[in-house]
């Protein structure tokens, strides 16, 4: 454990100091980093079953290979983050197989079923972009050396996922007809879902250990702006309707709907006309987790038994 106090360590990392091992951390730093890495690892892990369900609808063998490559990347990224957690004294075994479904910390978006190819490609276009937004910020600003280095490979691979999303969104919208409608329907629920993922607005944000310990650089609202700065022009170019626009007077992107607002998971639908709801009720929905949470966690537990059996037979 670090001989420094929390305040001394905070000042030191803001001066550019890079932490390399758990011995240099205060307990506060370690805890904040554990939370950050757990969210990161769980997000990568839970994207895999969500994407896998949708990859079954791939239009050809070749496109399914691409989708499976993305899923394989996500599992590898999850492994990297869980491996880093082991250095901090956590158990990968417990984190992956020992927790109850509601104890996972991935965003609510990955508790939703992805029902068709259009939903998969919008997920790689929107959700993976949110991943890049968050992780590039961590890569640039984090004071934890091992994570900074690990994110180089992760960033490159995530860019391929983003490319996959963009190219396929373009192909499907250009095809027109039902294909375009399917993309629009996916965008309708996934656009607000991704913006919600970035969390509380800055004026409501409780004190953030992650900023104090320099585990990230940008605030929630800034990250939301970064995501919209590339997503909104993409959708505009493809002629997709989105509830956000650029405001030249304030030089920022603005959401055109009550934020946050109510979501019905079974209908995959946001209720803009009901007006703004409280963040407390959003937290309640997140905490209760979404429709696929238990099914996805159960799938991992089952696979553990199968893998042990294969290894035992070898």
């Amino acid at each position, binding site marked *: 454990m670090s001989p420094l106090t929390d305040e001394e360590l905070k000042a030191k990392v803001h001066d550019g100091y890079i932490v390399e091992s758990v011995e240099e951390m205060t307990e506060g730093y370690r805890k904040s980093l554990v939370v950050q890495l757990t969210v990161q690892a769980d997000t990568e892990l839970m994207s895999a079953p969500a994407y896998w369900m949708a990859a079954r609808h791939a239009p050809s063998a070749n*496109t399914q290979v*691409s989708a499976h490559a993305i899923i394989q990347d996500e599992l590898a990224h999850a492994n990297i983050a869980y491996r880093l957690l082991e250095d901090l004294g956590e158990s990968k075994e417990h984190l992956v197989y020992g927790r109850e479904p509601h104890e996972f910390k991935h965003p609510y978006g990955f508790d939703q079923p992805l029902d068709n190819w259009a939903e998969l490609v919008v997920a790689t276009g929107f959700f993976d972009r949110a991943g890049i937004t968050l992780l590039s910020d961590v890569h640039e600003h984090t004071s934890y050396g091992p994570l900074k280095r690990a994110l180089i490979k992760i960033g490159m691979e995530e860019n391929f996922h983003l*490319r996959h999303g963009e190219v396929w969104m373009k192909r499907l919208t250009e095809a027109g007809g039902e294909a375009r409608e399917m993309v629009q329907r996916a965008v309708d629920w996934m656009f607000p879902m991704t913006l919600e993922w970035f969390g509380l607005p800055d004026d409501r944000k409780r004190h953030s250990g992650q900023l104090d310990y320099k585990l990230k650089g940008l605030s929630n609202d800034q990250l939301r702006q970064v995501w919209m700065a590339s997503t909104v022009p993409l959708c505009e170019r493809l002629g997709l309707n989105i509830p956000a626009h650029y405001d030249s007077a304030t030089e920022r992107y603005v959401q055109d709907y009550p934020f946050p607002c109510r979501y019905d998971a079974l209908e995959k639908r946001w209720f803009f006309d009901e007006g703004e709801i409280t963040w407390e009720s959003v937290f309640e929905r997140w905490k209760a987790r979404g429709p696929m949470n238990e099914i996805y966690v159960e799938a991992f537990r089952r696979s553990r038994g199968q893998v042990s059996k294969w290894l035992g037979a070898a």
Partner: protein
Amino acid sequence: MKVPVLNSRRLPDVIAAAAAAHVSGGRDLWTDPLLSPPSDQTEATWKVLGEVLDPEIPISVVELGLVYGVACSVGIAEIELTFTATACPCMDFIREDIRDRLMQESWIDEVEIHEVWSPPWTNDRITDEGREKLRRLGVGVG
């Protein structure tokens, strides 16, 4: 496909800089097409291919050693291309990027990509420049 991240929209510097990382495939790095046909079209085609980046690693398909041969005359560019693996998930994107970049040139009317699997691609095919770039990116090459 180049995503116009910034268009003419003004954004705070910190937002614009972070959003620039979202441009995938490196198309923002493509230079403008030549104004007039080059004297050596094959050589010019090699040069243009040098701007087409691998979808995952920011080095070009030439530096990665994917291009086995180029011939270009009378506006027809023929490319002998391999991939790092037969189940490479990026094949589609690489073919598309090569075609799109070459077709930007006024002196190229047609792009023919011939896939070649022999000899198979190995790490040894990465050029010295490619290796140096990878080393700087923190990617080890055996």
